[in-house]
């Protein structure tokens, strides 16, 4: 998009002169050259390790200590203690498990649903495309955050047996309202790819629709789907924390970054560390994912020229 003719020339001549490089290698090389994306990746990996091996680094997230309530950060409690004397650092690590889990699975779900709908719509066209796209339009016209809260409050009130777990509920609710953009993206990719020669060739040799979709067209969309998945994940993490913050997401006592922040709000005026650290974790995680997404976008785009040095 921002390439100057000079860059383009070096890119193409470079492509001819250099030894052939596998696409995977090229993507990796380009990604690694994006320094902020690399920093984001390192940061995210650190968060994931911290969260996975939480018991190694921290106190128990549930141990209460009536003598040590609302203590500011110290050597003993790195992020202070909360109103029940629980270690905030431990709660953030354990809450991170939930927040990352919700982010990962709801984005995965929305990407899978979106990809299937977009692929069917773009590949088959006709009335199916029309129907699916009208449904997509209707879902896009929902005021997302309001409907999320409405849905979550309805489902939480129901006490359904299979939805006892508020974490599962939040994953489903977020995915229900976020598959539309991936669906549109995949549809537009399919619309252009299905006219390409290699697809026509596949048809000519008698490949079935399913094979053409999954073996020929879909692999060519994976890069863009990947980029969209990172954006979805960042969105899902922010949305989960927002929902839980308002009280309609993950329900206490299960900790998540959002509901830790919600309880912190009450005490924030006198114990600011309670509010600062959970938010900081959300912020760091989301910005890391956003930078990774940016790096992937550059890496996967066959025409992009690295402008960052």
């Amino acid at each position: 998009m921002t390439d100057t003719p000079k860059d383009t020339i070096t890119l193409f001549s470079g492509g001819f002169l250099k030894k052939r490089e596998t696409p995977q290698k090229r993507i990796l090389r380009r990604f690694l050259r994006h320094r902020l994306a690399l920093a984001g990746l390192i940061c995210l990996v650190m968060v994931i390790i911290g969260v996975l091996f939480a018991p190694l680094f921290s106190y128990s997230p549930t141990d209460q200590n009536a003598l040590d309530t609302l203590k500011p950060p110290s050597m003993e409690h790195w992020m202070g203690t909360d109103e029940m004397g629980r270690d905030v650092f431990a709660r953030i690590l354990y809450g991170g498990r939930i927040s990352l889990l919700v982010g990962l699975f709801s984005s995965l779900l929305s990407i899978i649903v979106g990809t299937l709908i977009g692929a069917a719509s773009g590949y088959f066209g006709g009335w199916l495309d029309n129907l699916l796209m009208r449904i997509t339009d209707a879902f896009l016209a929902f005021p997302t955050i309001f409907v999320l809260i409405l849905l979550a409050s309805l489902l939480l009130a129901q006490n359904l047996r299979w939805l006892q777990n508020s974490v599962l509920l939040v994953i489903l609710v977020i995915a229900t309202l976020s598959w539309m953009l991936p669906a549109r993206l995949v549809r537009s990719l399919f619309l252009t790819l299905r006219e390409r020669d290699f697809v026509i060739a596949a048809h000519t040799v008698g490949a079935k629709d399913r094979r053409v979709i999954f073996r020929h067209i879909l692999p060519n969309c994976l890069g863009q789907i990947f980029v969209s998945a990172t954006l979805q994940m960042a969105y899902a993490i922010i949305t989960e924390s927002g929902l839980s913050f308002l009280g309609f997401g993950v329900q206490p006592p299960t900790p998540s970054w959002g509901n830790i922040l919600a309880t912190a709000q009450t005490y924030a005026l006198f114990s600011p560390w309670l509010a600062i650290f959970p938010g900081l974790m959300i912020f760091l995680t989301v910005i890391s994912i956003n930078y990774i997404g940016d790096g992937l976008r550059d890496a996967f785009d066959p025409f992009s020229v690295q402008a960052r040095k």
Partner: protein
Amino acid sequence: MTYIIRRLLQAIPSLLIISVILFFLIRLTPGGPLGALERNPQVTPEAIENMREQLGLDKPLPIQYLSWIKGMLLRGDLGMSYIHYRPVTEMIGERIPNTFWLVGISFLVTLLVAIPIGVISAIKPYSFFDYAATSLSFMGQSVPVFWLGLLMILIFYVTLKNPMTGLPLLPAGGMHTTGQENNLLDTAVHLILPVATLSLVWIAWYSRFLRASMLDILHEDYIRTARAKGLRENTVIYRHAFRNGIIPIITLIAMDLPSFFSGALFTETIFSWPGMGRLFWDAAKTRDYPVLLGVVIINAGLIVIFNLVADILYGFLDPRVKYD
């Protein structure tokens, strides 16, 4: 013109689908819309039965839906709040101006800041300014609004004090200081933190979008032609590039306006700003479904209308777009 009519007709089914989905979702809830009352020991079962009849909840669902949609279209009737026993339209009506003030002013601030940032970044891409603006905008896109709001309160209410009086520098919530309900200046002071919170996030998105849009345009042939004619750089940028670069922004704004109301939800909740978002949150806590449904319907309507406006505006502003 025919295009406009056709787009209007297209919008109707999608609004209908939305309303049907929402209506059935809510009415099918076990515990029912009167769930909150049923749990109240002071309300007798007979009284509940009476209310059920009065609100028409004993009739079959399709009839309830039809009467609801008829009342909504003909009389702007969104039903009665189950908690406050007041018309939902009235309750939303008195909150909407507050939300409009908050969103409108934040929006003006956003444009005033984001446009210069975007244009300067695009004129000097990969300069120090551009890097700083890009990093800041990444941060703005990644920060949770409600946390930003909390930080604002921590900084400007808790930490910083007015050097004259020793009171907090800025108020942390509400719309007025008690006893000063008609003082505009007082309201303006109460607006500072919510507006700052909302605008910061939008500035992040808009400055980046404008930068990309301007960069695209600056590579166009007609910009090269303008430069080749010997026009001054300022003329090229402001008369030729900016005018075209702003087109996608205008349609983006029209598309985004309804989502600004959603964004205001968190801000209103944190700063206790008595707007539509705060009303929604309070209603959600008490499961006041008619109010929830009303707010969702109004926002969905806004989204459909503004998408329409965006489409039409785009054709109007950009003569290259042709509809058949």
